[in-house]
């Protein structure tokens, strides 16, 4: 990268300053910072402009959600999952009701499974659109967020027609879903996907050919395959490092048993690859949505369940592939209407722990690029 003259200059300077260490500086980043994606606080130890150490401080959005689950019936708890990962609430709901269904041994009607697949994939698109848009804002490009939020509004208005709310839906139920589609909804959905595909190509040419974007993301924040597995990364973070792991493929649940998913893996392991995986997954989700619409089976949208849901005593773990990784619920029931314990396996929380390792040795200005590429949601981290 550097020219010969520049290298010489650098080495001269280094030899002169050998053995001399500048004073380390402690820098607090957050909890109010535009690019920490919420209320994450990072205590950075800097030497000059290089990050020597980093300590993430979490808990600024801790709401005691897991304790609240214990004091709500299974039905009431669905609403609270919306607030955990607030960029993909529909997928969180599916995880919660999935765990409850597994505990009760319920079989969900085929139509409900397909509806879940459709709304889940649309939610994944919405979540990834926000991730891509805000990532580009962190790097200083303002146009993409306008485009991605415009596309996201389409999904939100479709969801609003379906469930009555823009993004705290309360739409999934134990044993099925709340409503069937309104008249003409599927047609509108198809038209939207058509439009989104065109917009996505436009976005692709805008972002991925941009030299400034490439310079700031390629080779920055490298995670190798073993490291990704050792840290328990899931979702796009792992798949960008060459780990071929997607619960939709490897442990298929609900309608994914019938609809095959093409797994999106990249080998580079840097920030650019993580962003690329998200963009590829949007395309893949569009294909899955179309497949779900084409094969939407007729029939009931919910199984018959008693009004008071009382699962038998026992425990279960049910995980789905969220837009950020493996999002699961470990649920213990004591036979009453309330779950005795409902533990969230939050992908953001597990993906966050690699951050100190990832930031060490990078320049301060790269920190923003790396944090943005991890795409954490603090509601999911702090619960």
């Amino acid at each position, binding site marked *: 990268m550097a020219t010969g003259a520049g290298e010489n200059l650098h080495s001269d300077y280094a030899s002169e300053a050998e053995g001399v260490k500048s004073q380390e500086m402690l820098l607090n980043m957050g*909890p*109010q*910072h*535009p690019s920490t994606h*919420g*209320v994450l606080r990072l205590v950075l130890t800097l030497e000059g402009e290089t990050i020597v150490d980093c300590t993430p401080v979490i*808990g*600024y*959005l*801790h*709401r*005691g*959600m897991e*304790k*609240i689950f214990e*004091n709500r019936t299974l039905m009431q708890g669905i*609403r*609270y999952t*919306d*607030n955990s990962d*607030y*960029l993909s609430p529909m997928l969180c709901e599916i995880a919660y009701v999935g765990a409850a269904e597994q505990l009760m041994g319920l079989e969900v009607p085929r139509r409900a499974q397909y509806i879940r697949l459709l709304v889940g994939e649309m939610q994944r698109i919405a979540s990834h659109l*926000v991730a891509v848009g*805000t990532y580009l804002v962190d790097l200083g490009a303002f146009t993409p*967020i*306008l485009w991605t*939020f*415009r596309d*996201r*509004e389409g999904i*939100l208005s479709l969801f609003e027609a379906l469930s009555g709310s*823009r*993004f*705290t839906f309360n739409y999934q139920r134990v044993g099925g879903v709340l409503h069937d589609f309104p008249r003409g909804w599927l047609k509108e959905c198809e038209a939207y996907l058509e439009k989104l595909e065109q917009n996505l190509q436009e976005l692709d040419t805008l972002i991925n050919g941009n030299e400034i974007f490439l310079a700031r993301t390629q080779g920055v924040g490298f995670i190798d395959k073993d490291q990704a597995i050792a840290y328990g990364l899931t979702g796009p973070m792992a798949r960008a490092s060459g780990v071929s792991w997607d619960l939709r493929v490897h442990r298929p649940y609900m309608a994914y048993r019938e609809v095959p998913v093409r797994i999106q893996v990249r080998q580079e392991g840097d920030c650019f690859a993580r962003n690329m995986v998200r963009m590829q997954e949007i395309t893949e989700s569009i294909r899955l949505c179309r497949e779900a619409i084409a094969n939407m089976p007729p029939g009931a949208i919910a199984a018959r369940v008693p009004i008071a849901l009382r699962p038998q005593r026992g425990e279960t773990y049910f995980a789905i592939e969220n837009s950020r990784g493996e999002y699961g619920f470990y649920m213990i029931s004591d036979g009453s209407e309330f779950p005795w314990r409902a533990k969230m396996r939050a992908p953001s929380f597990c993906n966050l722990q690699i951050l100190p390792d990832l930031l060490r040795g990078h320049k301060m200005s790269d920190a923003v690029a790396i944090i943005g590429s991890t795409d954490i949601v*603090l*509601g999911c981290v*702090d619960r």
Partner: protein
Amino acid sequence: MAKDEQTASSQNDPVTRGGKRRTVPLTMARGPFEYTPGNQENNVQLTSVADMLQWAQNWARSRSVWPLGYGLACCAIEMMAAAQSHYDLSRFGSEVFRSSPRQADLMIVAGTVSVKMGPRLRLLWEQMPEPKWVLSMGQCANSGGEFYDSYYTVQGVDTIVPVDVYVPGCPPRPEQLIEGLLKLREKILKKGLKIQGESEMDR
């Protein structure tokens, strides 16, 4: 057409069939569709030069309220959506989300305030220069909302900072946030001035 509907409904209404029902004129806007910005601001009475100067100052302040870019939870996503092209907050002069509290006029408390975040929120508010306003967005910030029995949330942000406008909803739609901003604008414009049909006590 609205009149026809009204008469039709009053004929069927068992209460008004006797014809002795006092109708109270509805002065408040029933929704954003009835709300024309500026209409509510016209009834300010200016009786002296000092009032006019005050009005000019208020007018200038109310037209560009810069919020602090301070997202807490789910509501922050709706706040972001309000600032983007679909809802376009810049129509009302508030699109400049400042990252530094020193440059901000308005703090939009968008989301749940936890016990750990409370002191930081207070500190940020203290760092903002006067004049400053606080808009509480969403039920969590208004009153605790659905986390009313949580051990770690602040039950209403008004226990920490003084709030000017409350916007209900979980989360409020971007239109609701814009409505709240317009209400705030009205409040700023009327500050220290006499209002037609309002007594001193109402101010």
